[in-house]
């Protein structure tokens, strides 16, 4: 089953008639995704790979009962698309776009919280429940990278996720769901939120966390583990061990993060919570092999 997405999830593709929207709709359908609607204003009545196109999300929801959206929408228009989706009752949405203005993201996140909805992204390669459905551009067809199995993956990264996932498969295992929360400083959903969902998922026996330097999400994840909110085995790989400390937020940023944010800080936090931290992507596979699945 996995989390967030299953073969039964009713999906709408916002921006379905664009080049990328059309291209990836084909792959998402091939992954088993139940895409029931597309939306492009002014293109009502068309079909893309057999999927009916509506002029508004509200109409798509009314006609098809979709409740999950994947957005092929340029960054400048992402806020409007997300607001439209939230207003129409969409409860899960994946923002693939890079370069979304952070103030727009603050608005989207606040609105989503009001609506009790979940935003994955922006700046994510997407999410997938392996063998069932995929939103975005996770290369589920590479069977040395993705295979159904007992490992949940939560990641801030795109191509690094494939790198790490390939070592899960080399270890003889596979994935339940791979959830990309995106690489932006203000993601719609945070690592710890996803761990809570994996905790409740029977199929997921352990989780691989792909993190990186910056922010405090890995420290929050460690805190969740310490407080008993996540009890399954947790293996982390953290990129940016030798990255220079990020200084762009000035004093204010330093005051907020309070010394957290480096891979060292994250490693200490996770290890003191009982998680294992791999030094290299390949070590993720080795650590999983040591555990008994």
């Amino acid at each position, binding site marked *: 089953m996995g989390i967030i997405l299953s073969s039964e999830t009713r999906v709408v593709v916002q921006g379905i008639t664009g080049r990328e929207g059309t291209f990836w709709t084909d792959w998402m359908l091939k992954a088993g995704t139940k895409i029931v609607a597309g939306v492009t204003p002014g293109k009502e009545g068309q079909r893309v790979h057999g999927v009916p196109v509506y002029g508004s999300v509200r109409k798509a929801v009314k006609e098809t009962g979709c409740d999950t959206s994947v957005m092929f929408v340029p960054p400048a228009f992402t806020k409007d698309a997300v607001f439209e989706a939230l207003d129409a009752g969409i409860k899960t949405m994946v923002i693939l776009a890079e370069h979304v203005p952070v103030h727009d993201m603050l608005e989207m996140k606040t609105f989503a919280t009001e609506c009790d909805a979940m935003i994955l992204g922006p700046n994510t390669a997407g999410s997938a429940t392996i063998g069932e459905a995929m939103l975005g*551009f996770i290369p589920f067809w590479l069977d040395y990278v993705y295979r159904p199995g007992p490992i949940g993956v939560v990641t801030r990264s795109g191509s690094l996720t494939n790198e790490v996932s390939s070592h899960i498969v080399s270890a003889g295992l596979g994935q339940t769901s791979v959830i990309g929360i995106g690489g932006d400083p203000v993601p719609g959903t945070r690592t710890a939120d996803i761990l809570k969902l994996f905790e409740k998922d029977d199929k997921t026996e352990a989780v691989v966390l792909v993190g990186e330097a910056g922010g405090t999400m890995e420290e929050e994840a460690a805190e969740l583990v310490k407080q008993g909110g996540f009890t399954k085995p947790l293996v982390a790989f953290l990129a940016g*061990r030798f990255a220079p400390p990020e200084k762009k937020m000035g004093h204010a*940023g330093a005051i907020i993060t309070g010394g957290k944010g480096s891979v060292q800080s994250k490693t200490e936090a996770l290890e003191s919570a009982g998680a294992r931290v791999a030094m290299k992507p390949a070590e993720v596979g080795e650590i999983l092999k040591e555990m008994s699945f």
Partner: protein
Amino acid sequence: MKLYEYQGKEIFRNAGIPVPEGVLVRSPDEVNKCSKSMESPVMLKAQVLAGKRGKAGLIQKLDDWGKIKEIVGEWIGRKFGSEKINSVLLENPLDIEKELYAAITIDPASGSPIVMACGEGGMDIEELSSAKPEAIVTERVNIFKGLLPFQIRNMVADIGLSGTVAKSVSKILGTMYRLFRSYDAELVEINPLVIDSDGNVWAADAKFRIDDNALFRHKEFERGREQFDDDLEYEAFKLGLSYVALGGNIGVICTGAGLTMTTLDLIKLNGGKPANFLDFGGANYKNAANALRIALKIKGLKVLLLVTFGLFARADTIAEGVVQAIEEIKPKVPIIMAVRGTGEERAREMIEAIGIETYNDTEGAVKRAVELAEA
């Protein structure tokens, strides 16, 4: 992008936040006209984007116009870190009674703007924040409601202000928030916010950082060469690529920031020295050729390492760009490439056809690159 102090102060002045009278000079000769219109003593403030210039002696109070001209001459063109000093702000000094701290930035955890104020400003605010965190008063802002009057009132009371000073600081905080929103700022910081002996409040400094992703809404700002530490960084920026110079001899080109950082980590773990960070992932997948052109300009390059996992940027599309660039530039340094992702078989064939070593795991490629760099 970061703004210079003088740019931030101009925004403040136009919005009604009091800033000291001042003149920006870009050469010692320009000091001459100031000596007629300004009274001495004068504060000299080198305009740089990095912090801690005060500790480096780049803020000075001087009386004598000859000396002022001399110092301006010394500073202009000089390096501060990797930055070149292009201008100096001359300002009338303030009669400082008390220094406060005020800032608005983004709190990623809550996804909201956060306002900070402290009754003790000046240079050591970061140290104060760890030693005495309760001295810093914070308010999270609901983005749809904005910074509300009661929030300002309570903050100002909590840092111990009252009367007309409280009123002035309240107005400044409200204006800072409006600017924060209207400029898509990541940071608006005043340190110190000065109360002078007459009880007037002044922004003695201005730190203003605008979200690069929102610059399309603020066409008045353009990122020029001075915004970057390095020529190649600037060149990469103009091509839509993200480049950082790191000083080593292994050139690195990767898809995606996470994979790039991992590659750099692996180079270090294997004893090598990365020359740079260069990410051409995401929407810039047609930029493989441009990335290669940039990286090949790095001085002292011993080997070029490409680590890719083609997704949105398909592996075969990337390969096409790489082949094209290599045929065009005919580089002399050896090239190593990890090829994976959508269309990887075809990509590998194309790459190997022009004599480049390919790998299907990152660490294998890294190890070979380190080996070649040390040879």
